[in-house]
């Protein structure tokens, strides 16, 4: 019997759940505690934002909101590894990655507050907006990567998708296209174990989600998604490979959704408490805090001070969000086409007229 092909998928982890280093071969960036510290502070800021956003929804000041609780290492790892010229195609949860790229918390709130203007955000103008139809952003990223390749630009397109989204046909299509054209494309499958109520094991018979990349001949790796160092290292590697013209990668970032799916969901209906409790012992902040404290670059006092600063910043953003007046009724007409077609102009007039009567 001849063998047609063999494959091996690595698992990347540096930091244990207890905050101890598991490996000696730290990547360069991680040898500088200041770099890690800055990233850790970003993770804390995202968490402060997230807590506040959920509270806003509960008090009726925000629409449905998708929490990022527990995803901080994955999101900050992705965002911080990218260059500004790269393109990020997020799903609807990767605020950490976006903040690092310049998106403001007030813009996230505006979007979930029912206002398209949140998508006209302060991040890179070429970044994609939040994407609700699961997985479709992966193909947009592949298309962006194709544009970069055709124009010979040293840029990479990065798409984020969930474990659920890894079943989506668009995700497979993006993997296939990236392999066929050798695109500078990195797909981050953020496996938080749940797609609303459907557990990871019900999505697919595949042992890892990383191996979906084999279907397209991409580089595949599974990463501890709660380990910031691992995420960042895997991203650095994938981005470098892509930028050098060596093609696309699939990174499975294994993490856990510590929150409900969104504020419209009640995870207690389908998810055992013990599982959530166990997941809290593996969450990304604790281990990083332990590690940095062990290195002597972080302390409880510093954390308290920083948390206060986070809350101050978040409050400022919330206030800015709440102060945004609703858009004029004409807003729904004025951005659909570059020039308003005639028959739509009449409808616009009608809307203005009804507005005047209110």
């Amino acid at each position, binding site marked *: 019997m001849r063998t047609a092909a063999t494959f091996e998928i690595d698992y990347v982890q540096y930091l244990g759940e207890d905050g101890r280093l598991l490996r000696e071969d730290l990547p360069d960036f991680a040898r500088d505690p200041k770099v890690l510290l800055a990233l850790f502070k970003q993770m804390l800021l995202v968490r402060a934002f997230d807590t506040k956003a959920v509270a806003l929804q509960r008090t009726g000041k925000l629409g449905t909101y998708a929490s990022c609780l527990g995803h901080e290492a994955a999101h900050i790892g992705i965002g911080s590894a990218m260059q500004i010229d790269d393109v990020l195609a997020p799903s609807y949860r990767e605020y950490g990655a976006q903040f690092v790229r310049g998106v403001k918390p007030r813009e996230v709130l505006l979007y979930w507050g*029912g206002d*398209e203007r949140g998508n006209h955000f302060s991040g890179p103008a070429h970044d994609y907006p939040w994407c609700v139809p699961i997985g479709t952003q992966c193909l947009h990223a592949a298309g962006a990567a194709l544009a970069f390749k055709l124009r010979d630009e040293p840029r990479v397109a990065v798409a984020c998708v969930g474990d659920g989204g890894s079943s989506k*046909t668009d995700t497979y299509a993006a993997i296939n296209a990236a392999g066929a054209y050798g695109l500078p494309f990195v797909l981050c499958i953020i496996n938080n174990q749940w797609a609303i109520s*459907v557990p990871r094991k019900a999505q697919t018979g595949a042992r890892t989600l990383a191996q979906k990349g084999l279907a397209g001949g991409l580089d595949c790796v599974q990463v501890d998604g709660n380990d910031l160092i691992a995420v960042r290292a895997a991203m650095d590697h994938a981005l470098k490979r892509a930028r050098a013209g060596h093609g696309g990668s699939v990174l499975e970032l294994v993490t856990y959704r510590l929150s409900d799916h969104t504020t419209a969901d009640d995870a207690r209906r389908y998810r055992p408490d013990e599982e959530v409790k166990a997941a809290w012992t593996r969450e990304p902040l604790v281990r990083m805090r332990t590690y940095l404290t062990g290195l002597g670059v972080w302390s409880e006092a510093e954390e308290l001070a920083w948390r206060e600063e986070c809350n101050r910043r978040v409050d400022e953003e919330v206030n800015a969000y709440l102060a945004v007046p609703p*858009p004029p009724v004409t807003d729904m007409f004025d951005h659909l086409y570059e020039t308003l077609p005639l028959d739509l102009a009449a*409808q616009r007039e009608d809307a203005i007229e009804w507005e005047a009567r209110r």
Partner: protein
Amino acid sequence: MSAETTPAITLIEAITQALAYEMTNDPSVLVLGEDVGVNGGVFRATAGLQLRFGMDRVLDTPLDETTIAGLTVGLATQGMRPVAEVQFDGFVYPMLDHLVCHAARFRNRTRGRLTCPMVLRVPWGGGIRAPEHHSEANEAMFTNVPGLRVVMPSSPQRAYGLLLAAIRDPDPVIYLEPKRLYRQYKEEVPDDGEALPLDVCFVLRDGTDVTLVTWGAQVKECLEAAEQLAAEGISAEVIDVATLKPLDFDTIHESVRKTGRCVIVHEACRTAGFGAEIAARLAEHAMYDLVAPVERVTGYDVPIPLFRLEMKYLPSVEKIVAAVRRTLAVS
């Protein structure tokens, strides 16, 4: 069944009741979709069904609408009666290929050898302050597709009776559920297994001066408008189209023969919305009955805005009343 033993239920509960009734009576009926199992569906339409009928009758699917559509066609062509759920109207587009090219055509393609008795349940339309892609009125897309039936209930009772009919129908049915009405009010819905016909419009209110033709969430607005108009001495007939395809134009025509005026109301975009078909049939067949031009009160030709503006996009009671007044001002 007496009123004492029939508690009033919401439209979404009527859907659950119909599903449970038919699953009890027909072992080939099964439910599939994202989160329809333990979670009972994002709107709770399938709440309790997995517990009651087992994992083999209520299946969570992988997160892919193409998969749901294709598996459903496969199941239906092999002797099952699948009732598939898509979570929101805005996620139905990846299903169109299997619906248009296969579900709607297997009987015709194979001259009856393989058939496709399936239902696709689609939570439909706006007005619930939902996120992007969760509020779409895309019924027109299905109505030009030969081989499909397109149905939309507008009350708990009709939801029950029409869903039973849809499941029992030997051909594919797109069953659109106005989310705005899911929990808006309750009604007694006897669990008697009585289906409603899939090829008639329902005249919900008799009138003599104008005919309001509508479906889904706007039924309520039209009834309210009729009430307001009645206070001014204007008598509006209200028709719930209910089954858009095939269209029972006779009932609409009969009404317009009587009233001479017609206002069509729907929340979908106006241009090439299904209201156009009704207006077109009036132009073809009711020209001599009409004493005023047909009016359409619809959503604008833009994507329904996120919720800060969505109510300004949707038709309203005031807009309906104003349109009726315009038709009455004529001649």
